[in-house]
């Protein structure tokens, strides 16, 4: 009984194992291609169309998916596994199927004003080393930031420049300059961002004086469709005086002598502003004189040569020398 039962049990176990094995083994004509990194499997076997038509489609697809998933999981179990807090984990290898990216490529950052300028002028980017030699401390230090080389904030004494006010605090001045540089840089940074997004930035107004505020208020008041006619007034507001200069002209028939005198004065001023020597004209004059001088020399030289020839040929026949000299003259 017992033996029988043992055999039975063994048989049952064997059967169970076979069942399990059958469940987890799937036969395919072509091996699947796996990309475990992406948890993907590619089934290249052609789908059985006859079976697809005969069976219920849904069922066929489900069984196909189940088989392939089984194969994928089998493949995963081949990876080395470890146990982390009652969970079996495996490290997936690097995926080798290249997937297209989900989102479009990010747009490049629009160039800053300096970058545009540098491109226009062809100024190359220069990489500066992070560390520079500090002669005072005899060591390499950062170019900027904490514990930087040549740190002028650590000066315990500042020489007062000759041109500066002796009572001025040079430390405060340095700090103020630094703060201003920082603020300017920040403003430029914001401007660059705004330019990238095509938004105009308004420079925050400086501290306005009373007069400036008044002018701004007056402008705002008349900047309505009715030019401020129906604008409400404050309880004790004074009537605004018209701002802006009115053009004024001399009378049409006024003091003619004064008019003449003013014009003559204006002419005198204009004459004084003119340079005494016109350089181009002076150069032209010089060139002309030189030309004239050269021409005179040439003339004289020719005359002298002619005389010399005559002298030289004095002994020769008159008939031969005559026509030659005449021809020369004609040229």
């Amino acid at each position, binding site marked *: 009984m017992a033996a029988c039962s043992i055999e039975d049990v063994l048989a049952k176990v064997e059967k169970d194992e076979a069942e399990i094995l059958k469940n987890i083994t799937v036969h395919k004509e072509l091996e699947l291609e796996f990309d475990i990194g992406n948890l993907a499997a590619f089934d290249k076997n052609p789908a059985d169309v006859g079976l697809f038509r005969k069976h219920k489609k849904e069922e066929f697809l489900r069984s196909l998916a189940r088989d392939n998933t089984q194969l994928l999981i089998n493949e995963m179990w081949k990876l080395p596994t470890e146990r982390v807090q009652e969970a079996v984990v495996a490290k997936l290898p690097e995926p080798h199927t290249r997937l297209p990216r989900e989102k479009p490529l990010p747009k490049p950052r629009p160039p800053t004003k300096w970058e545009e300028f540098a491109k226009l002028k062809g100024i190359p980017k220069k990489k500066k080393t992070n560390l520079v030699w500090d002669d005072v401390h005899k060591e390499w230090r950062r170019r900027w930031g904490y514990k930087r080389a040549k740190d002028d904030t650590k000066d315990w004494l500042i020489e007062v420049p000759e041109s500066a006010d002796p009572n001025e605090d040079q430390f405060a001045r340095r700090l103020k300059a630094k703060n201003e540089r920082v603020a300017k840089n920040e403003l430029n940074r914001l401007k660059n961002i705004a330019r990238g997004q095509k938004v105009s930035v308004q420079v925050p107004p400086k501290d306005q004086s009373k007069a400036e505020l008044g002018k701004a208020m007056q402008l705002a008041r008349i900047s309505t469709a009715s030019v401020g006619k129906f604008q409400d007034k404050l309880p004790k507001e004074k009537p605004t005086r018209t701002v802006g200069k009115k053009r004024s*002209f*001399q009378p049409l028939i006024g003091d003619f002598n004064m*008019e*003449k005198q003013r014009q003559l004065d204006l*002419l005198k001023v*204009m004459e004084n502003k003119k340079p005494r020597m016109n350089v181009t*004209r002076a150069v*032209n004059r010089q060139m002309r004189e030189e030309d004239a001088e050269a021409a005179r020399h040439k003339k004289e030289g020719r005359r002298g040569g002619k005389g010399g020839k005559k002298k030289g040929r004095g002994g020769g026949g008159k008939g031969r020398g005559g026509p030659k000299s005449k021809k020369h003259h004609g040229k």
Partner: protein
Amino acid sequence: MRPLTDEETKALFEKVSKYIGENIKLLVDRPDGVYCFRLHKDRVYYLSEKLLKLSTNISRDKLISVGTCFGKFTKTMKFRLHVTALDYLAPYAKYKVWVKPGAEQSFLYGNHVLKSGLGRITENTSQYQGVVVYSMADVPLGFGVAAKSTQDCRKLDPMAIVVFHQADIGEYLRSEDTLT
């Protein structure tokens, strides 16, 4: 009509003095009576005091022209000389150019003066100097700007421009409806 402001006077004088130099004083300070410059509808008129007083009888919108028009101010407040000013520029001109009879017609049609048409030119004319153009019979034909100095003119080829055209008496016919 109104007198010129200081800037306008300066613009006018600077332009006119390119042609007649310091002779402009003779236009301002005349022995034969009081003459003045007046602005009317952007145009500058040169007229005697007597004429000015008479012209005050005419309302502004009805007045077309009075005295001699020297030129007009452009919208950018530059001054442009008109050919009507020639009567006052010609007698005082410092730099003159005479054109040959054959080139007269071309100039009067509004063309530049070429070297081939150049009869005579005042000595020591510098480049871009305002010049008054005369016919060989000493009739003023218009004015322009010297394209080359006298010195350079000698070596120029015949088809090169010597004087840039600015205004000529042919405009009395060509621009009859705009000249005042």
